[in-house]
């Protein structure tokens, strides 16, 4: 019942967006602003086209590589920063500095250093998410009540045992929530990279449509990206509850 109600709200929200879009399209009456009806005609063609999915999968693989690398490096870095003051004093200022440089500004540098292939896209996703993840992961660790660790220390837990038996499980639900939220950023940075140079990927399709001013197809591709985003978000929410089963009964989750 809850799922049906949730889907109902999503549909209602989408209808509202479509109604506003269509209203603006009719008022402006511009070929660059396709009506909902014209978009609706193109939608099935794009959705049943195998190529759309091949490009989507190519994009997903790049995101998983870049974002996965970010998580793998950000998690131990944030644990070390959280645990060792000296480490955080050495590491965090440089991370803070890089965190404020917009990802698109790295595109020329990465293109020169790593070429214009997939590696550059992976690196851009990494730059866009890693430096943010470190700070949010640290914040996740800090918001966990310190009494958990203090209790555990009086049970005799120390060092690595304390980290994997208490620090990580105590923050796990928050860490997974952070991963869910920042996954959307990874996706955005991939599109930034694919817009600059690509021969495949969903961003490439968007740019192709823009170049030939096929606005209906362009909007449909944006819808596909949006649907994929909602699906991913829900899969990650489900994964979080599955990995952290104690949250099912927690009213504060």
């Amino acid at each position, binding site marked *: 019942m809850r799922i049906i109600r949730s889907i109902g709200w999503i549909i209602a929200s989408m209808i509202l967006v479509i109604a506003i879009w269509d209203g603006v399209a009719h008022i402006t009456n511009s070929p660059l602003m396709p009506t909902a009806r014209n978009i609706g005609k193109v939608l099935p063609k794009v959705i049943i086209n195998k190529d759309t999915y091949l490009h989507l999968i190519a994009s997903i693989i790049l995101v998983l590589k870049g974002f996965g690398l970010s998580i793998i490096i950000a998690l131990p870095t944030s644990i070390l920063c959280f645990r060792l003051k000296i480490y955080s004093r050495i590491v965090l200022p440089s991370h803070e500095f890089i965190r404020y440089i917009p990802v698109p500004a790295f595109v020329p540098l990465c293109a020169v250093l790593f070429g214009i292939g997939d590696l550059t896209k992976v690196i851009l996703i990494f730059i866009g998410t890693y430096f943010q993840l470190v700070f949010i992961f640290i914040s996740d660790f800090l918001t966990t*009540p310190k*009494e*958990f660790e*203090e*209790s*555990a*220390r*009086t*049970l*005799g*837990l*120390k060092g690595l045992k304390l980290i994997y*038996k*208490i620090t990580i*499980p*105590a923050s*796990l639900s928050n860490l997974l929530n952070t991963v869910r939220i920042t996954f959307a950023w990874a996706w955005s940075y991939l599109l930034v990279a694919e817009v600059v140079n690509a021969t495949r990927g969903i961003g490439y399709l968007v740019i192709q449509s823009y170049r030939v001013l096929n606005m209906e197809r362009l909007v449909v591709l944006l819808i596909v990206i949006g649907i994929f985003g909602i699906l991913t978000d829900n899969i990650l929410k489900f994964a979080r509850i599955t990995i*952290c*089963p*104690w949250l*099912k*009964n*927690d*009213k504060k989750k």
Partner: protein
Amino acid sequence: MTRKNNFLEIQDLSVGYYEEDEYVDVLSKVYLSCNVHEIVAIIGKSGSGKTTLLKAIAGLIPIRDGKVILDGKLVIGSARERGLVFQEYCVFPWLTVRGNIELGSKCGADTRPEVVKDEVERLLKSTGLLEHQYKWPSQLSGGMQQRVAIARTLAADPLLLLLDEPFGALDAITRLQMQELIQSIFEEIKQGILLVTHDIREAALIADKVALLSGSPATTSKVWNVPNPRSSTNPLKLPPEQERVATEIFTLIKAE
């Protein structure tokens, strides 16, 4: 391991913290002792340093001066010999009731699987948690969660149990039940217990000794030996000797 009387001795203890490069004393010249199988209640106004004292004994905060000696050994840092139960965030929410107690037992002196299993079963029974063993802490009431925390701490087989206002967040009825539970558990264990409480009657009811922390920085201003401790389970109707101690404590705190 032989466990002597006066097995916890706190001598001339001073503890504080730095606030903008200035050292602030919280406790100064605290003296206290606890025998094996004895409950010592620590009482005092809010902010009198009761929790700080427990944390210093637990080795969670550094000691400036003085020493804490447990079972003839100088206390340095945290260890499973001094188990601490907090008022809040006392259980690990990512572990079931059984998982919480199992974790404590796996930190104990004997971690053979069969010993851990037996110990967990025994504690589940003695704390009345057997039928809740596979529940998550979020499915339990506050009193039940405190039972889990106490069982988990006992599972690690500490020499000393440190309870930091463990019933402070509970309603009156649950509090009475927990006081009874502590008394019944206490009969089964060999550990000493240091209990921080705001409740004078609770202190007089279940403790062998009551220590009053007062002043700024706080010190042990008086220690009472309670005659016939735990001779009643009703804090509303204390036996005359305990009532006298409770009245004395109340008068002294009021006069501060």
